[in-house]
């Protein structure tokens, strides 16, 4: 039996890299989709709001793991051999869009109505007031929970290991299969995740504290 050496450590570090890549891709795609979801949730048209709300309810009611399987096999039946990275990025994008859309809707709706009315008085159209007045203010408020959600996304990418994408967790499994020292390997994997996530958590909390100073 081999023991844990620098070879395995390097392999885990490569896994860390892929975890970061997948997190960034899915967070970027998810924010674009989430922005659209947020816009649809604050739309003036009632049907648009209802449909988006149903979409959010459905996505938030399905586990990411099951969503991942549906995307993985669902794209597969069209004869396209989808790479695990693509399947997991799509599934994560859908999942993230629902949650981020809801977070951002909250911060947009937290802006006082008087801001809308004031920009209306200045002759701005609904779009102009949304882009120029409301969103810049909402952005400041939504930053801490968004960073907090990025931590969630990093943790959720561990599920991509299930469809065979070699990120940190999968790398740990592979190493464990050859060394059979699960305690050491998985504690190490957990430690790597902690190193990735903890600074972001701290940053998110610090921003939140800074933002709340005025409210106290």
């Amino acid at each position: 039996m081999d023991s844990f050496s620098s070879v395995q450590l390097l392999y885990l570090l490569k896994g860390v890299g892929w975890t970061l890549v997948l997190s960034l891709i899915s967070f970027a795609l998810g924010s674009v989709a989430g922005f659209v979801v947020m816009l649809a949730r604050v739309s003036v048209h009632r049907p648009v709001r209802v449909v988006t709300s149903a979409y959010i309810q459905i996505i938030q009611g399905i586990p990411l793991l099951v969503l991942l399987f549906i995307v993985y096999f669902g794209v597969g039946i069209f004869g396209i051999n989808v790479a695990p990275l693509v399947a997991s990025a799509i599934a994560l994008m859908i999942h993230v869009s629902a949650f981020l859309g809801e977070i951002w809707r909250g911060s947009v709706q937290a802006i006082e109505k008087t801001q809308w009315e004031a920009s209306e008085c200045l002759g701005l159209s609904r779009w102009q007031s949304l882009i120029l007045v409301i969103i810049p203010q909402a952005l400041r408020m939504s930053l801490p929970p968004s960073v907090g959600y990025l931590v969630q996304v990093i943790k959720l990418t561990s599920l991509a290991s299930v469809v065979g994408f070699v990120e940190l967790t999968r790398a740990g499994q592979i190493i464990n299969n050859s060394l059979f020292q699960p305690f050491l390997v998985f504690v190490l994997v957990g430690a790597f995740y902690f190193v990735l996530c903890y600074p972001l958590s701290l940053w998110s909390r610090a921003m939140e504290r800074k933002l709340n100073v005025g409210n106290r």
Partner: protein
Amino acid sequence: MQYDFNFAGLLPYWHTFLDGAVLTLELTLASTVFGLAIGIFCSIGSRSRFRWINRACAVYVETIRNTPFLVQIFIFYFGLSSIGLQMPAAVAAVIAMVINVGAYSSEIIRAGMDAIPRGQIEAAECLGLSRPRIYWHVIMLPAFEKVYPAITSQFILMMLMSSITSQISTEELTAVANNVQSETFLSLESYIVVATLYLLLAVVLRLLFWLAGQLLFRRKRVITQAQRCSASVGNAAARKRKAVARKLPAVTIRG
């Protein structure tokens, strides 16, 4: 490309799906009850005067919140069995879920307790309430009432997270789908069925939690009702006052 969905092929397996759903609910129930207990203890501990209790609670919460559930499960199932602590998959799943949800709910409850105004606690001290009674009546119950929506949605998230325990072969809903699809090759259909079941469970749980909230927090319900009442009464009074005000100037001018 055309694909014919064949949901009929899954009909013979309805019983297994049901069993899976029941196990998922059992996992959720167990982790809700025990996780809540851990959460309450830990949130009290994180407000303790003793530094080391504080530190221990913070380390526990931060460690759990910053590592993926999948890795936690692997540590509990594979890791602990390799150092001589063997347990069945379902037990390991429940323990991992309890520890996970305990950390999250502790953070939520702590936020609720921090939101209790300092003056209320001081008022209770002035009234000579004992420390346990202050904790229970002045801090715990109002805090729990405040964070009830957040904590119930955490439990629903936990129900969805229980799907991850399929990775250590707990026979819950997702694992059932894995088995059925490998027997019938109806992969997409099985996962769609399971997704629908999860959605149904989430909706039912949300409804149950809402009902429980209505029953548990009668005080809150009464308060909101009273507020609504007084608001409508206030409106009526305001209207009356306005009517009087409209009459008043005329009177003064005449006078």
